């Protein structure tokens, strides 16, 4: 019983939230990694692409709700998501045609493209604020919990409770579906294979008749889909705020690089790794140990590895350690 209480406590505060956060980071990191693998630059505008896509989805959700269309217990935003993805895809294609295409034709160095993406980031940042405002927007409707703390306690008779939010469950399920679909696309379809060929060796790919423009277009559409999905899931689970999405850029990049930038598998592992590291390293074990250890050994202090103040540093430390010992990331990505 004591052991179960400790386990439930740990699950409620560490495992469930970290898993949901990890899934959101992984989806974001996948978008970053795709751009890096195929278009060969670090896309700083990714966080704001997420914000823009989410903003569009929020507006569409509001329209749907106004017409009385909802998804019952599920958030209506899921219904608006496909249209949001399409709109974001179009925006990315237009951005590419207006901005990136010019530099690609110049065969500009990756570092120049990084700075260009920084410019795109500021523009998108501004557009998001102009169209959707700077305020906190909550757009999750439907049933809030799969199971609440009280229900869990009543069901099991344990002292500790456990809550699972609907949005956390949706996040995990959607993330798994999107990841499977992405891997199927990259490995099984002709277009996916041509993208991988283009990523591995651009010259060879061109020689074998792959249309580079098509590869670029498909990449942006995929990136739009991943970014919007990640952004909407994150917004549903927490809330939408332009500034928060900008801040997500750091952990997403950390996830992509730790996993091995340019490698989709790495992005997923990296996302979960960063999320779990952020939560566990600063987690005080006091209460769990009080449950798990005999009474005489119960800890007096907080039993915390690092104070919460250092939470930001955790992603950086992992990043530095990985780059020192495995410059290509945990999975073989491109060396940077």
């Amino acid at each position, binding site marked *: 019983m004591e052991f179960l209480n400790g386990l439930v406590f740990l699950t409620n505060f560490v495992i469930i*939230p970290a898993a949901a956060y990890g899934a959101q980071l992984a989806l974001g990191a996948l978008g970053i990694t795709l751009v890096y693998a195929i278009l060969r630059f670090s896309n700083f505008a990714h966080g704001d692409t997420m914000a823009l896509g989410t903003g569009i989805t929020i507006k569409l959700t509001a329209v749907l709700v106004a017409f009385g269309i909802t998804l019952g217990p599920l958030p209506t935003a899921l219904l608006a998501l496909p249209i949001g993805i399409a709109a974001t895809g179009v925006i990315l294609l237009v951005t590419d045609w207006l901005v990136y295409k010019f530099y690609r034709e110049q065969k500009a160095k990756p570092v120049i493209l990084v700075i260009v993406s920084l410019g795109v980031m500021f523009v998108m940042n501004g557009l998001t604020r102009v169209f959707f405002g700077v305020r906190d927007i909550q757009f999750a409707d439907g049933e809030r919990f799969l199971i609440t703390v009280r229900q869990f306690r009543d069901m099991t008779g344990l002292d500790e409770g456990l809550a699972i939010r609907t949005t956390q469950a949706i996040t995990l399920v959607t993330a798994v579906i999107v990841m499977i679909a992405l891997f199927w696309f990259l490995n099984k379809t002709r277009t996916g294979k041509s993208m991988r060929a283009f990523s591995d060796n651009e010259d060879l790919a061109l020689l074998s008749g792959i249309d580079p423009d098509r590869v670029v277009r498909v990449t942006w559409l995929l990136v739009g889909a991943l970014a919007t999905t990640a952004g909407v899931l994150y917004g549903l689970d*927490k809330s939408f*705020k332009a500034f928060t999405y900008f801040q997500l850029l750091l952990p997403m990049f950390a996830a992509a690089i730790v996993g091995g930038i340019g490698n989709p598998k790495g992005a997923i592992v990296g996302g979960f790794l960063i999320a779990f590291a952020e939560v566990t390293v600063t*987690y005080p074990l006091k209460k769990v140990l009080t449950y798990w250890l005999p009474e005489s050994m119960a800890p007096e202090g907080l039993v915390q590895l690092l104070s919460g103040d250092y939470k930001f540093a955790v992603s950086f430390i992992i990043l530095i350690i990985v780059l020192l010992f495995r410059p290509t990331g945990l999975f073989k990505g491109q060396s940077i």
Partner: protein
Amino acid sequence: MKHLMMATAATALFAGQAFAAAHTGDVKIGIVLGFTGPLESITPAMGAGAELAIAEVNAAGTLLDGATVTGIRADSTCIDAGAATAAAEGLVTGDGVNAIMGADCSGVTGAILQNVARPNGVVMISPSATSPGLSTAEDDGLFFRTAPSDARQGVVMTEILNDRGITEVALTYTNNDYGKGLADAFQAAFEESGGTVTISAAHEDGKGDYSSEVAALAAAGGEVLVVAGYTDQGGKGIIQNSIDTGAFDTFVLPDGMVGQQLVDDIGDALNGSFGQFPGTDSAGAEMFQALAAEADFDGTGAFAPESYDAAALIMLAMEAAGSNQSTDFMGEVMNVANAPGTEIFPGELGKAIELLKAGEDIDYVGATAVELIGEGESAGNYREIEIQDGEIVTVNFR
């Protein structure tokens, strides 16, 4: 070297003439607030509050024999001291502002005070910087604030907890000068009164995910959770997450956390939580809200009334001194703010100017019952509030 000296001397001479010429000319007031950054959601109402006071004085048209007042906005960013200093420097040296209404966050306010206001001798009145550290900062008599120091709020919060019989609390604060200052002031006061703070943990604003912070707070435990943060930032995230995971169910909300938006967002779960924010039962607050509604902005927004008062004090002090030069009117700020004299409420700035012209004393009450103490900071009247049925209800004044 000789050229440099000559150039410097010449510049000083010209600058002197320029200032002398500007003595009775039009007035420019810099409005330095974080229009981008973590406070970007409350600064529009703050800026509008200051501009409302300026518009009122311009409508009267009597300040300093018909001077027109212009408000010039600049971005403090709230977090980037370098950017804030550059923005304020631009206002003073480029636009030639006579005084600064700002800044908002305590950190950038301290930076602007030391790097811009003091070297240039420009008066600064902050509507919202509440860090206790600013009480003792060197200011050459140039710095005032219409918000109270958080040292006072820490004591008030302790009194409220003691009255409710709560002896063990967990504490989380936003990781900046405001949060840290308030948390330290509160912890010192609370522990002195015999209470226990189980954990004092910082949280970063502007993130969506606060599960690890809440996990740490839950593991440390406590009867209630004190959240020294912002309503639309980490503070809200922490509360939402604590309620979802069942970590805490009662929260203590200091000034940055009291807002109807928070109550609406969180819903029923916030009922029973309590806190305090600067406020009085003075009639000024409602008058200001009516004016704000006319001017089409949210008068209940955090620190919007303080912003109105800060701008009004600057202009009234100028009138009292008969000059728009900071060195002349810095000594008048305390006089117009405090008794004795005729009480001045929002919407009566024109009347206040007339009274000052007639040589009479005024006691500026404004939207927040301004009473400046010590080195020139608000004395700190607090409203004790409780969330009841989704409403913020005032239960006491302290």
